[in-house]
């Protein structure tokens, strides 16, 4: 059978890789649509033909469970995002907190806290450092975590909070600081079986596969944590 996946953009590469493995393991094929979590949510609410939703947060899967667009009880956290303060310039900072506190830069990029979970985490981090008010005027907001990355990568922002999953060791060197997860609520990315996929064998198989050890290894490779005990 075939499973139609709606996948939050930040998980794109991992999802591609997973679906290859999934096909090998089960013989099912998958067709993946990407989009921001908010957009995918709106689409699913209005009849988009997806079987499984891999969101970038836990809020929207939770909502879906309540409003009947998803199958209750199928929700689980498949990955936990890791936030990184990054600048392509290796000289940019050695002590990240001092760097932020001194504020010797024009622009700092974060994702829009309203639309992207990584943005929310970034804001919480700044709050915990007591720097939110001081830096407010220097923030530029990317609509998605991808846009935020582009702001930084093109040099238009001195540094920015991006997802670890976005950084390639090979060519995205520079200065980086993996933000300890004590600075922000966990960026729990949840998956859920949608109503349309209720009777799709392949869909259930995919969710099963996503929770498997094999899958978790792959997910880790792409810069995510795996939750200690899936909810």
């Amino acid at each position, binding site marked *: 059978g075939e499973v139609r996946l709606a996948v939050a953009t930040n998980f794109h590469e991992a999802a591609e890789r997973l679906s290859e493995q999934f096909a090998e393991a089960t013989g099912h094929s998958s067709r*993946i649509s990407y989009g921001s979590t908010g*957009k995918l949510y709106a689409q699913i609410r209005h009849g988009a033909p997806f079987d499984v939703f891999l969101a970038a947060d836990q809020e929207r899967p939770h909502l879906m469970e309540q409003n009947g667009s998803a199958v209750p009880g199928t929700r689980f956290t498949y990955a936990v995002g890791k936030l990184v303060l990054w600048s392509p310039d290796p000289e940019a900072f050695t002590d990240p907190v001092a760097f932020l506190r001194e504020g010797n830069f024009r622009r700092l990029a974060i994702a829009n806290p309203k639309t992207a979970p990584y943005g929310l985490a970034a804001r919480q981090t700044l709050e915990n450092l007591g720097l939110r008010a001081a830096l407010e005027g220097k923030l530029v907001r990317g609509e998605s975590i991808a846009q935020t990355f582009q702001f930084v990568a093109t040099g238009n922002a001195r540094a920015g909070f991006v997802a670890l999953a976005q950084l390639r060791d090979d060519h995205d060197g520079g200065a980086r600081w993996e933000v300890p997860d004590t600075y922000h609520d966990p960026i729990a990315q949840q998956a859920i079986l949608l109503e349309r996929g209720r009777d799709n064998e392949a869909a259930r198989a995919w969710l099963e596969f996503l929770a498997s050890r094999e899958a978790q290894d792959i997910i880790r490779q792409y810069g995510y944590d795996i939750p200690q005990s899936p909810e």
Partner: protein
Amino acid sequence: MSPEWQTVWLTLKLAGITTALLMVIGTPIAWWLARSNHWLRQPVAAIVALPLVLPPTVLGFYLLLLMGPEGIVGTLTKTLGLGTLPFTFAGLVIASVIYSLPFTVQPLQNVFSTVNERMLEVAATLRASPLDRFFSVVIPLARPGFLTAAVLTFAHTLGEFGVVLMIGGNIPGETRVLSVAIYDHVETLEYAKAHLLAGGMLVFSFLVLLTLYLINGRLNNGNLKS
């Protein structure tokens, strides 16, 4: 067909069908707007321009609401046994048509309003019926407007993206068009692929446009300035 070519083909199909449909739909609207003295003329003209004002994604969102299973249009299409339109190619076409309507209607209306009334009168005295006059006099005289309308519509549908993403759902081989694919590549940091697709699209479009303009220039050869 490889997924890339599938996307290219889908894109061209969408832009082509949208442009063709809009030429058919837009021409009578533009003609009416340019020629009528009905009191509804100005309101309709204003409404035609409105799809432009909304951000494409937002327009897409409202179309989704309308055409979704609970929307007015969706209820209608369902009772007609057509299913719902979002996430189908047909849905994409309809959304593109709505979104690009102003790009077709405005240039046409514009050029229609400059067509010399006398030429229509002459044609009438030479036995041409209203429809005949339209095809044998208005269309040739309004050719630069048709060219502009077609170019704007086609190019805009190629680059159109927000609406398509929202209504189409980015489903490979079904509703994923080039603009969405390039966007995806940029979003997922696959810059090399993005550059390739964007560059290819630019070169291709440039060549198509250039050819069009050259042909048009040849046809004109100074004749439309009179």
